[in-house]
């Protein structure tokens, strides 16, 4: 079956190469007429038959049509639509610069592609977010965060209060592939996850796939979040930025060579440490503080209409330091990524993208106390190369294929230290190395006005290689045996054949049914001992002990538009199974210098749900309502006495409302509301006494529920008049408008002392994190 489908795809591909000779190709780039930035997923359509395509992530499109005269419609949210009449009797290059519609900023929110695109395209579970459109929505402390908007989409949810991590259709936080200009971002949070590492000023476009994952993406089993940085204005210099309650931002962009080359440089830094300094400078805590910063940089050069090179990078750090009389602690952590890309057009129908990617995530801890010093280091480093091709043989046909490979270096948590003059360096703790590779082919084919198929196949591989020493621990806890692997020596290889399929059937002009299946494998794992993701969490590779995670997902959806496509609705059901899920064994306590894979247990998971979505993308009032009903469980033979248990984020009901109303040219009022069933947690069930300690006996895993979480936020955005040099504006946000005391965590307080007064009461206390928080941000543009 699998073999056959590969053959069919290959055959169609070759067939198209031959018959394509009788057609002519219209191709080119779609850009913003003011800044010269590429427009991603702009639609290019033939007016007579509404067939067409979208621009790719570099703004390129290609349509192959039989000879004739066509009216081609170019459109993009927030921009004026341009219609061109083209006599196609020769291969034609048509670069289009779309002028922005007046006051684009206020048109609002997430728009799902072109008119009725959500119904007619063969994509399912995909959302595009343009950052400019979310800037009027309320944000905690005024910090606009794309990750928090994503959490409001159906089937997607956030973790605990205020955090930027996300959970898709019952999957774990490590099962989302987060890409920033094609570089994997391993830790997406600043400040224990309260802010994401993505500075909204530097981001152009964000695409989330929660199902129907295209074959070009691999390595994660739940979702893909593909984020593109701004390219920078290729026509004129601009500066923009903002001053907020806890952070300030500044972005510079402009041409290096006008119309050929541009750059973008964006930075932000928090200043809690600076504000607190006067208060602690004379205390014993002088020198303590916390801050984070981000730098995003991108440059590109257009050599010719056929060749373009991009350079982009991200660098971000969190730095926490603590000092008092005898302890000095410094904890920096963060990501760095760099991407070099070359786009090349072989001809009007064949587009190539070649990437070299570097990334690095690490966490460090250095502590000194008197004569005692301890240092800890953990992280992951990647070097990747990637090439992919897009081929557009026919207006009804689009093919993409490519190869990629990554060399991973895993640095497990290791500790070194010094006590006086004696240094100790740990044994046993080994770095791990691995190659992860994939080859894919995906093919989108329109059979008729009614039926469109998007089929793909990805073949993936992971190989753990030396140098590595595997130590086997016996029952007594003593190392009993070990195997040593030399440099680059093969240790263990896993393969995956990952089919991906989406089928769309139109039902009338305004409705369609879409179904999808995808299988994906994941070779890298993040295992967390906490309810939330922390910078100390460590990525580990598949190995002799750890098998790849496997995700299988089926979905079926009905999509229908109303009132001239002004209102888009959908109902989707999904069923997902997860294999080789990883948790720590019962009774695990983090111990330094221990191969953590020896502490893993393995199990399965499943999730099923129904998602309803209503989106109004046009008009003065825009926004969406999404509702998800879902059931998510995990099963581990070695946990919870072998009984299935609910996943921590098994939230039965999730409702999100996002609305934005443009009052006039200057003012926009926006609000969000969220309701979620409380998260599952393990509670204390009994107690007993050992050596005078009251010991908690825990009940079944995640057997108890916190109270429901709900919250409303509002914001008011003012955009000032354009003056000669500067345009500025204000954003006023109120987080948690009705001051709901949402449960953040529950702990027990012991009142009384055992021998002094033998009456001890245990009182459960619920901690709530954020009360009502107003904030104001001033934004400017030069």
């Amino acid at each position, binding site marked *: 079956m699998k073999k056959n489908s590969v053959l069919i795809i290959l055959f169609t591909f070759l067939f198209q190469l031959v018959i394509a000779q009788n057609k002519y190709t219209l191709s080119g780039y779609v850009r913003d007429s003011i800044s010269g930035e590429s427009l991603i997923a702009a639609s290019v359509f033939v007016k007579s038959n509404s067939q067409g395509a979208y621009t790719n992530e570099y703004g390129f499109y290609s349509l192959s049509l039989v000879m004739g005269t066509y009216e081609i419609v170019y459109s993009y949210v927030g921009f004026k639509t341009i219609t061109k009449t083209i006599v196609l009797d020769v291969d034609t290059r048509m670069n289009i610069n779309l002028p922005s519609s007046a006051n684009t900023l206020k048109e609002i929110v997430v728009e799902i592609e072109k008119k009725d695109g959500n119904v007619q395209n063969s994509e399912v579970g995909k959302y595009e977010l343009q950052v400019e459109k979310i800037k009027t929505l309320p944000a905690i402390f005024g910090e606009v965060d794309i990750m928090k908007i994503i959490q409001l989409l159906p089937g997607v949810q956030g973790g605990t209060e205020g955090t930027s991590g996300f959970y898709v259709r019952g999957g774990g936080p490590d099962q989302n592939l987060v890409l920033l200009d094609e570089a994997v971002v391993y830790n997406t949070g600043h400040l224990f996850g309260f802010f994401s590492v993505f500075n909204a000023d530097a981001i152009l476009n964000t695409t989330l796939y929660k199902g129907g994952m295209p074959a070009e993406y691999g390595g994660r089993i739940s979702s893909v979040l593909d984020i593109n940085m701004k390219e920078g204005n290729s026509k004129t210099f601009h500066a923009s930025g903002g001053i907020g309650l806890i952070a300030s931002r500044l972005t510079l962009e402009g041409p290096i060579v006008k119309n050929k080359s541009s750059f973008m440089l964006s930075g932000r830094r928090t200043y809690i440490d600076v504000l607190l300094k006067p208060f602690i400078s004379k205390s014993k805590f002088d020198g303590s503080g916390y801050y984070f910063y981000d730098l995003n940089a991108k440059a590109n050069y257009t050599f010719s209409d056929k060749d373009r090179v991009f350079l982009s990078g991200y660098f971000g750090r969190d730095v926490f330091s603590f000092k008092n009389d005898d302890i000095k602690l410094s904890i920096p952590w963060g990501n760095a990524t760099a991407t070099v890309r070359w786009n090349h057009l072989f001809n009007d129908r064949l587009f190539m993208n070649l990437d070299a990617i570097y990334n690095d995530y690490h966490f460090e801890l250095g502590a000194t106390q008197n004569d005692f010093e301890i240092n800890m280091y953990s992280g992951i480093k990647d070097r990747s190369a990637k090439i992919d091709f897009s081929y557009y043989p026919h207006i009804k046909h689009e093919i993409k294929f490519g190869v990629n490979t990554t060399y991973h270096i895993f640095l497990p948590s290791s500790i070194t*230290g010094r*006590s006086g003059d004696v240094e100790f360096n740990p044994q046993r703790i080994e770095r791990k190395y691995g190659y992860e590779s994939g080859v894919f082919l995906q093919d989108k084919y329109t059979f008729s006005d009614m039926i469109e198929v998007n089929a793909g196949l990805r073949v993936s591989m992971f190989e753990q290689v030396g140098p590595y020493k595997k130590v086997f621990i016996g029952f007594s806890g003593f190392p009993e045996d070990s195997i040593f692997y030399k440099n680059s020596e093969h240790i263990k290889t896993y393969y995956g054949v990952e089919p991906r399929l989406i089928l769309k059937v139109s039902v009338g002009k305004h409705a369609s049914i879409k179904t999808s299946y995808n299988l994906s494998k994941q070779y890298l794992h993040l295992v967390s001992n906490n309810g939330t993701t922390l910078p100390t969490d460590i990525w580990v590779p598949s190995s002799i002990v750890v098998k790849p995670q496997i995700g299988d997902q089926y979905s079926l959806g009905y999509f229908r538009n109303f009132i001239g496509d002004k209102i888009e609705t959908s109902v989707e059901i999904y069923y997902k199974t997860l294999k080789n899920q990883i948790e720590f064994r019962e009774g695990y306590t983090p111990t*330094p210098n221990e191969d953590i894979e020896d502490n893993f247990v393995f199990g399965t998971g499943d999730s099923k749900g129904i998602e309803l979505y209503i989106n109004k993308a046009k008009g003065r009032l825009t926004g969406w309502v999404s509702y998800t009903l879902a059931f998510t469980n995990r099963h581990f033979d070695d946990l919870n006495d072998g009984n299935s248990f609910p996943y921590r984020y098994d939230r039965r009901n999730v409702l999100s409302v996002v609305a934005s109303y443009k009052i006039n040219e200057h003012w926009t009022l926006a609000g969000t509301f969220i309701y979620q069933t409380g998260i599952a947690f*393990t509670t204390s069930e009994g107690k007993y006494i050992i*050596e*005078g300690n009251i010991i908690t006996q825990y009940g079944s895993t995640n057997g108890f529920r916190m109270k429901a979480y709900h919250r409303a936020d509002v914001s008011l955005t003012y955009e000032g008049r354009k003056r000669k040099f500067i345009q500025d504006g204000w954003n006023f946000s109120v987080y948690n408008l009705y001051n709901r005391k949402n449960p953040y965590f529950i702990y*027990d307080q012991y009142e009384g002392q055992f021998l002094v007064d033998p009456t001890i009461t245990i009182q459960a206390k619920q901690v709530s994190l954020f009360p009502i928080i107003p904030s104001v941000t001033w934004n400017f543009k030069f």
Partner: protein
Amino acid sequence: MKKHSFVLLSFYSLFFFSCEKNISLDLPEPEVKLVVEGFIESGSFPYLFLTKNSAYYSTFSLLEINNNFVHGAIVKVFDGTDTVTLQEFIIDTAGVQISVYYSVGMIGQTNKTYSLHIEAEGMVVDAFTTIPPFVPLDSIWVVYNEKQEFPDKVKLMCRLNDPPQLGQYVRYFTKANSQGFLPGLNSVFDDAIINGTIFDFPLDKGYNRNDSIDFDSYGFFDKGDTITVKWCNIDKAHFNFWRTLEFSVGGQGSPFASPIKIKSNIIGGLGIWGGYASTFKTIIVPQ
């Protein structure tokens, strides 16, 4: 508490907005289990306390504590050749009737494994533990003026010559003057980091779990103290019990701590049956 204090501190300093309130949780009653707290030490006889668990959100009163002791149990210890039956003795202290089971018919020896079998109130539990070989401390000494605000406090230092093979597990207790032997907040170690080295390290003064803790002076001894360190080599299961127990107790109240299930070596019950290979070192700190 200590392990999480950095996270908690930074957390609270940044998010001083947080607030808390009392809530009541409607929990199911736990299944009743026997809780063993039993030991056999080199050169000493086996003894144990036998209790039961109780519902979590109940108030501990004298009555409940009395009710939790299990009386009339059949308790047997087998050392590979001989079996002894432990007898129950009741000590009345301050209104609490503490029952302890022991037998002087057996003395703990290193390199021996001891099996425990208990039958009580229709429940049966079993366990075994080993007294490993001795790996004593090389020497102990104190350092002065570690903390300016406490000129009379001293820090206890120890030197250990760790054997080359991995897998040493230790629990320690300290005794100051006439006080009993008390374990520190983190009383167990393994040699994963320091394996095979001659290693100097500070040792915290043991602390009574029923006293409130002053973190500023925690761990220090006083000038004039007669300090005895009881250094006990233990087996891995015994180590795991204290490791998970102390981690669990330390993590209470942290938003990032996940529940730690305590690794008991009692089959069918809760608690510990532990062997200690104990060695002692004493030092008198001048005034």
